[in-house]
């Protein structure tokens, strides 16, 4: 059991100017499940491998508990890692794979056997202990890789996209298994994924990275409710948040083409302090409600696609009105997504007016992309 601390940890790959991980500051609590998430190339795997000792730390330091492990060889760090491709030893049986680390460290045979069997029971692998990895299915291999980590009883678990080689259905069930297993074992875990749903469902806290820079660390719901900047806002949540840059007009409102939303006074002051008359506004699909067109303001949308999921219904549309072309240039994506009441969805091609629920808009500075608190 231990905490993990990244202290301005930086990694620059040789021959490159920009760091892959740029002075990462991160404190992970004892027993916490922390998920590193971001688009590919954001430095999340590199951060994990730095902690594992598979990548050099060029500046800053990394501590596990009170120990400075920055330049410590991997084997002395008391960590275990689950690789994306599992990295099982193909010539060893499942039992030998799981017991390899213990065998090297000179643990007595009986003890190894006991711990392997224990882990195998936990992971439902007992009947496969004598098989070689090639005779296992993808899900079983994944569990062996987990078992190999569990058997060592390390201070920290590292997982590098362990679910990305599984099919969609297995991924969902394994996701919950890993999360509950971690809670049961109570071992500090750092988990890397590019899938924000995995991040949201598994993590105690989620750390969003982009281009090697830490964007935000918080609980999944806080990330969802108060994204720190435009990137986090667009990255977290599925379907994605609608984000566009609006002109601020008289009367505490912002306009983009025909779309018209209200802006709180506190935000207006901060925007004008910045010397700007533009503001980036984001609203989640479920924050939009259809209204009758006579109301003041609202966002006129022509419906392109309706997704009826039974429990939910999503409307994908594009801005309606004469200035629609100008509008799309200033939108993050060229569709507007809204969640509507299922079984009451509008028809394709219909023109509807959507309104943002009071207080559910997110405002971001056009210049810095940072959140403007209301």
């Amino acid at each position, binding site marked *: 059991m231990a905490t993990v601390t990244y202290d301005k940890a930086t990694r620059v790959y040789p021959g490159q100017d920009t760091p892959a991980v740029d002075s990462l500051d991160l404190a992970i609590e004892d027993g916490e499940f922390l998920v590193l998430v971001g688009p590919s190339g954001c430095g999340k795997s590199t951060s994990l491998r730095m902690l594992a000792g598979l990548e050099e730390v060029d500046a800053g330091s990394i501590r596990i508990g009170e120990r400075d492990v920055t330049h410590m060889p991997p084997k002395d760090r008391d960590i275990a*890692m689950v690789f994306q491709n599992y990295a099982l*030893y193909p010539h060893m049986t499942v039992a030998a794979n799981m017991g390899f680390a213990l065998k090297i460290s000179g643990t007595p045979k009986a003890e190894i056997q006991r711990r392997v069997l224990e882990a195998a029971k936990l992971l439902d692998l007992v009947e496969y202990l004598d098989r070689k990895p090639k005779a296992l299915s993808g899900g079983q291999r994944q569990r062996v890789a987990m078992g190999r980590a569990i058997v060592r009883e390390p201070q920290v678990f590292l997982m590098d996209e362990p679910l990305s080689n599984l099919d969609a259905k297995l991924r969902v069930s394994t996701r919950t298994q890993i999360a509950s297993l971690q809670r049961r074992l109570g071992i500090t875990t750092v988990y890397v994924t590019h899938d924000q749903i995995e991040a949201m469902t598994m993590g105690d806290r989620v750390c969003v990275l982009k281009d090697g820079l830490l964007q935000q660390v918080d609980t999944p719901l806080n990330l969802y409710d108060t994204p720190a900047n435009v990137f986090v806002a667009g990255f977290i949540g599925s379907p994605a948040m609608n984000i566009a840059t609006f002109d601020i007009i008289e009367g505490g409102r912002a306009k983009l083409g025909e779309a018209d939303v209200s802006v709180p006074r506190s935000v207006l002051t901060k925007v004008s302090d910045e010397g700007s008359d533009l503001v980036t506004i984001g609203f989640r699909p479920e924050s939009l409600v259809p209204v009758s067109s006579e109301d003041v303001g609202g966002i006129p949308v022509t419906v392109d696609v309706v997704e009826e999921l039974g429990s939910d219904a999503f409307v994908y549309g594009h801005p309606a009105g004469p200035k629609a072309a100008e509008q799309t240039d200033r939108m993050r994506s060229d569709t507007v997504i809204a969640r509507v009441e299922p079984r009451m969805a509008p028809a394709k091609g219909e023109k509807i007016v959507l309104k943002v629920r009071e207080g559910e808009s997110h405002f971001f500075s056009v210049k810095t992309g940072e959140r403007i608190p209301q």
Partner: protein
Amino acid sequence: MTLSTPAGRAPAKRARPHRPQTRRASDPMRRGKYLFIVTFLLPPVAVYAIYMLSPYLQAIYISMTDWSGLTATQNFIGFDNYVRMWNDDQIRTALRNNLILLVFVPVLTLALGLFFASMLNVGGRRRNAAVAGVRGSSIYRVVYFFPQVLSIAIVGVLFKYVFAPESAGGIINTFLSKIGLESLTRLWLGEPRYLIWVVVLVMTWSFVGFYVVLFSAAMQSVPRDIYEAALLDGASRFTTFRKVTLPLVWDTVQVGWVYMAIQAMDGFAIVHIMLGVNGGVEGAGDVLGVAIYREAFASSRFGYAAAIGVLMLFLTMTIVVIFMRVLRRERVELG
């Protein structure tokens, strides 16, 4: 007949329902396929039979004659040549030397090849990668392959000078006396008991590079994260090599061993060039290949030479079969 007819018919009857279908579907196709295969197979098989198999068979016949290689006549003398071979001390020396080559050259070459290859590919602990070769591994890779580029004749001539006496420019002796180890200087190629060991050394030197490259290729096909997993599991370099690398490249080692055994059974070029047609002082460095050459072309005893050749053929085949058997292990599939 009466008994066999019903017995033979029963399965035919049962099989009938399937038959028309399979026949109609596959017959013309199959005939076409066979024709196609035979067309392509026949020329190489014919070439192989004429130029490879028939000389072997002829050699076996010639080994039972007293043919000198120079005359048109040859008399069948049965196993006389083999009996004579049995009592020939020089052949015994050659055979013993071949066995020494067979044991020491593969062991040395493969061990060194594996060692160098693993140092070049996974042995290093570099700053920018957890799993990499030692510093300068790309240079070593080229350097190790150099001997392979040299023709074996050049290697022979080269090492004749390396082991020559100081007055003739021998590098080893000059070096030894320069660093004050005069007492260790020897007439390396003049002492019967050193000769075969000199040959072992030279053969190892000239073959190692090839096996370094061969094993490097095998090691590079092992996914990197397996080495990383071993690293995290706390395996030292040596444990990684013994428990992970070696089992994963074992197939290649086995192939290497078979090649090596065949090469060690030969050794003709090196011995002939370095030690001469008589196998050096007192024939102490003789090998079967040189003996064959000597009997056939120097002593004009083609029949006898062929008999030695047949002996070598069977020895090589036996050894390869034994090696394949002993070294067989379960195949390991990566990924």
